[in-house]
């Protein structure tokens, strides 16, 4: 890995990182700050319970989860945060991950900067590996910023959050996004045209999201949902049980590891990188 290249990549993305941090902190703050207005709402509970199970399932909800969300003292802040913020975090941040990841090699090739880099004694895989690590570092930063946004919000509302469980949810969300980043990187190494790689990865991500939403309606074909990375993201389970499901962790780490290694093999074996 090249630390100089890592630094440069983070530096080149600094304004995008800044924008995303501001967005995520604002999003977290917004969700926390509107919490008091819905905390004691019984109408929301009745409305949610009136929804068909398949529709609830699309949002990762079940009648049992809804009961836990509301508890005896109304909607908990933890539950509210998972429902409105953390539930969508991998999709929102996944957009950044796939935009960055799908350009890891293809954008360098398209701009011609790969020729400049590879005129010097550096392995092709070092460039891809370093840029991937830079992406992970940026994602970790966004994760911390999200948690900071939540904590900042709790200063202004009554009732705290379980920091440990919130962190665990974010760890699972981070692993989901890392997996998205890894397959985006692989596609970027397979397809040197950045527009095509963005289209392919974006298509996979959208299809994956829709597939997961449709799982409750698929009946006997519900197993297809397991093909979606979002299927393994279980924020409600994490926040209510306080533990990460081993299967989710395995899938995310497995996809990340396999796609990352495959990307390195592909870039090293490519007959052309320009």
């Amino acid at each position: 890995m090249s630390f100089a290249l890592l630094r440069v990549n983070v530096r080149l993305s600094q304004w995008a990182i800044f924008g995303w941090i501001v967005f995520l902190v604002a999003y977290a703050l917004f969700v926390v700050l509107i919490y008091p207005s819905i905390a004691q709402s019984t109408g929301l509970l009745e409305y949610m319970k009136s929804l068909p199970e398949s529709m609830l399932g699309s949002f990762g909800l079940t009648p049992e989860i809804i009961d836990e969300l509301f508890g005896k003292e109304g909607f908990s802040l933890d539950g509210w945060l998972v429902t409105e913020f953390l539930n969508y975090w991998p999709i929102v941040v996944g957009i950044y991950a796939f935009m960055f990841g799908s350009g890891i090699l293809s954008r360098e090739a398209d701009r011609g900067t790969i020729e400049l880099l590879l005129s010097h004694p550096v392995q092709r895989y070092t460039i891809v590996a370093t840029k991937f690590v830079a992406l992970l570092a940026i994602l970790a930063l966004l994760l911390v910023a999200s948690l900071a946004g939540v904590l900042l919000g709790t200063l202004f509302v009554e009732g705290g959050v379980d920091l440990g469980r919130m962190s665990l949810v974010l760890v699972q969300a981070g692993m989901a996004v890392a997996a998205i980043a890894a397959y985006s990187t692989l596609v970027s190494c397979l397809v040197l045209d950045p527009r095509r790689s963005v289209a392919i990865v974006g298509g996979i991500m959208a299809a994956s999201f829709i597939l997961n939403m449709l799982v409750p309606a698929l009946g006997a074909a519900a197993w297809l949902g397991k093909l979606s990375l979002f299927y393994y993201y279980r924020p409600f389970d994490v926040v209510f049980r306080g533990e990460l499901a081993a299967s989710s962790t395995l899938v995310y780490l497995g996809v990340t590891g396999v796609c990352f290694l495959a990307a390195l093999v592909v870039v090293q074996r490519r007959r052309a990188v320009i």
Partner: protein
Amino acid sequence: MATNYAIVTQDLTKFYGRQRGIEGVNLRVLEGEVLGFLGPNGAGKTTTLRVFLDLLRPTSGSARIFGLDTQRHDVEIKRRLGNIPGDIALYESLKGSELLDLLGSFRGRGGGRRIKELAERFDLDLGRQVRAYSRGMKQKLAILQAFMHDPELLLLDEPTLGLDPLMQREFYALLAEEHNRGKTVFLSSHILSEVERLCGRVAIIKEGRLVLVDEVEALKRRKVRKMHIHFRREVGKEDLRLPGAELLRLEGQEVEFLMKGDIQTLLAAVARLPVEDIAFPEATLEEAFLEFYQPAPEGAAV
């Protein structure tokens, strides 16, 4: 004594699908020589350079630099070479110094003193962002990144593109110094005068095949040259039958010749005419190629 080659290619061939890049290129570049690589757009010059850098892998054949295979030992080779790409792409958001630091880091050192010397020599402000650089300044930065680590071999693709005449001269001086220090230079260029000035030998590539590898002196003898004469008064066509020159154009007192033979005899014949002014414009690339691109000589490869 054994001859040392910096670059050896053997039947080097690269196809892009069905489209030919280069085919059967056999070339040997001696250590310490400056070799000019000529060819029109699309002839295969950039493809050849990219194979040397392992940006492209050959369909068949091989390329060896310093005796090392370009596919298997690309990193070792690149430690010893400097490259100026033909169409330089830089990170626009970085400062010149930051870009050089990044590229220097791949070699484990920044080459600080050499960078400072070269920046002063080419009058380049490394504290500015690349996006604020003009075309010529970007080219200077490309020169710096290629020379900063004092490489043994220089692969240069149109290295003076965008440089003003003063800087071009400085670059030629730098290249001459490097040559005197025993460095090998592989110079791909469209500028014939540049190649003539700097190179000992030239290789000409046409439609992906090497059609000629020869000494520059031999090339000069083959080169088409023109002579423009402005006469004090109109001269009859029969007076313009000059030895070693072919009349191309006659418009009043303006005459253009194609020079082919011995210049001494030609000038002696011209001296008898009422000449007001005489000029020998540099042969254009097109003119030179018209001459070079006659049927390829047998056994052009070296």
